[in-house]
């Protein structure tokens, strides 16, 4: 039982890392919590569901379309909102209000467009034979979701640490003013980061029907809460800390589902409180001395 729980925790941990990564990337670059993050994941889920129902398309093949659409949406959203928000006297509070409002609008429009019913994509789309992993058997859809998540996490690592744009992104994360002082176009880098953040959320959304059981217009707030817990556990503003946070959350979730399922919904809040009490900077956070 423990081997199954650990293996499933690893698969779900990778998935929740992907689900939360975009939120942390956006926070790292803009210092704003995107309260509509889960709603963009929900839109990604419905785009994949729509492509499946209309064209019979496997969610795996919906990913390129998700990335293009949500990258574009992120860049537009950035230039429409963020520069004015950052120039305001209280960008943190205004961003909370604005992004919470955006979350509500997206959810309301999704209800109008798709209705309130829960939807699902049969996991047998990947075949009905389970996959054996670490001596345990799992649905193929779980393994595919975790594998795509791992690839996406690797791609973000390569983007941040082995590309010119990634260097610029990390510089903006460290200090927007200093980054501008090295010739970096901070707004362009930030707009791309928001686009990448939304594209990652949408990619996670494509697999949410398998990993969360079903999709619905109201799933956004739950995903945002879980994602927030994951990035606080790992380290706020450190995208790679998200992987550790996701694994801790995934393993914790599977243990709760296995041994105390009725308490599982409490997990993100319990982890959030525990980590804020014992290590507020997150497991990979650093105490930065301000000169």
């Amino acid at each position: 039982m423990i081997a199954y729980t650990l293996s499933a925790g690893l698969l779900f941990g990778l998935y929740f890392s992907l689900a939360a990564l975009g939120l942390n990337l956006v926070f790292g670059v803009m210092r704003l919590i995107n309260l509509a993050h889960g709603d963009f994941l929900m839109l990604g889920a419905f785009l994949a569901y729509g492509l499946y129902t209309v064209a019979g398309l496997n969610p795996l093949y919906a990913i390129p379309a998700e990335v293009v659409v949500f990258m574009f949406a992120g860049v537009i959203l950035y230039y429409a909102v963020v520069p004015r928000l950052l120039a305001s006297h209280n960008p943190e509070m205004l961003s909370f209000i604005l992004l919470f409002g955006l979350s509500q609008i997206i959810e309301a429009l999704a209800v109008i467009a798709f209705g309130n019913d829960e939807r699902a994509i049969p996991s047998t789309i990947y075949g009905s034979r389970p996959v054996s992993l670490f001596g345990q058997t799992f649905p193929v859809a779980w393994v595919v979701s975790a594998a795509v998540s791992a690839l996406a996490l690797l791609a973000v690592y390569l983007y941040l640490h082995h590309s010119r744009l990634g260097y610029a992104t990390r510089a903006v994360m460290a200090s927007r003013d200093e980054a501008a002082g090295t010739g970096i176009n901070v707004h362009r880098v930030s707009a791309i980061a928001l686009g990448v953040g939304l594209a990652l959320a949408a990619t996670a959304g494509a697999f949410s029907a398998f990993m969360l059981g079903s999709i619905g217009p109201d799933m956004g707030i739950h995903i945002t809460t879980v994602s927030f817990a994951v990035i606080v556990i790992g380290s706020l503003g450190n995208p790679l800390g998200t992987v550790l946070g996701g694994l801790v959350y995934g393993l914790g979730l599977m243990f709760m589902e296995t041994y105390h399922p009725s308490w599982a919904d409490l997990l993100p809040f319990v982890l959030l409180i525990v980590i804020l009490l014992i290590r507020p900077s997150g497991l990979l956070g650093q105490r930065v001395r301000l000169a």
Partner: protein
Amino acid sequence: MCPSALLSVERLSKRFGAFAALDGLSLELAPGEILGLVGPNGSGKTTAINVISGVYTADSGTIRLEGRPVGNLPIHRRTRLGINRTFQVPKPFKALTVAENLEVAAVHSNAGREDIARHLDLLDLSPLADRQALTLNSAQQKRLDLARAMITRPRLLLVDELGAGLNPAELTRMAQMLQEIARSGVALLVVEHLLGFLRVLTSRVVVMDAGREIFEGSLEAAAKDSRVIDVFFGH
């Protein structure tokens, strides 16, 4: 405007509410020249650097780099045109290593690994290349700040109180580094309180008070000028 001037600042003004931080400042700087900018606290020296580098936008006046107006450009555009600066309190990317700090700055200047290695050497940072910037002491962070500015290939470098907090040996070495940078053709506008340090660097200074230039000439002449004496000792 002198045709050979790299930087030409004319009647620059900047107010913060009722306080006039800059009040019609004008100055010029030729390639490879070192100009000292001195004055009592609150005289507008750092504001001048902030406005020229693009941190603040001037309320009026013009800033030209080789005759091209740059006063309305954002910071990153000015950096790419060749204006960069250091900070009184150095601000490296603390989470990155020393070498990574320079690699970030090299993104838009197309400086290669050899350039980065050369600047690490020039500023005595080679042994610290793999250290996280957070762990450097103040003098090392100042050298990193300078190296990071230099890797963007500036033609005009604005230096804000680089000498503050350095011991005599570090001051001597820093002066040598700045002179070497100027010899390569980079113009330096140096805000400094340490007049001994400034005297090593240059003989030409602009003295400011209340956002205005009150004197331009040599440090020796400034020491005998009644307006300068009044500003520093007369209040």
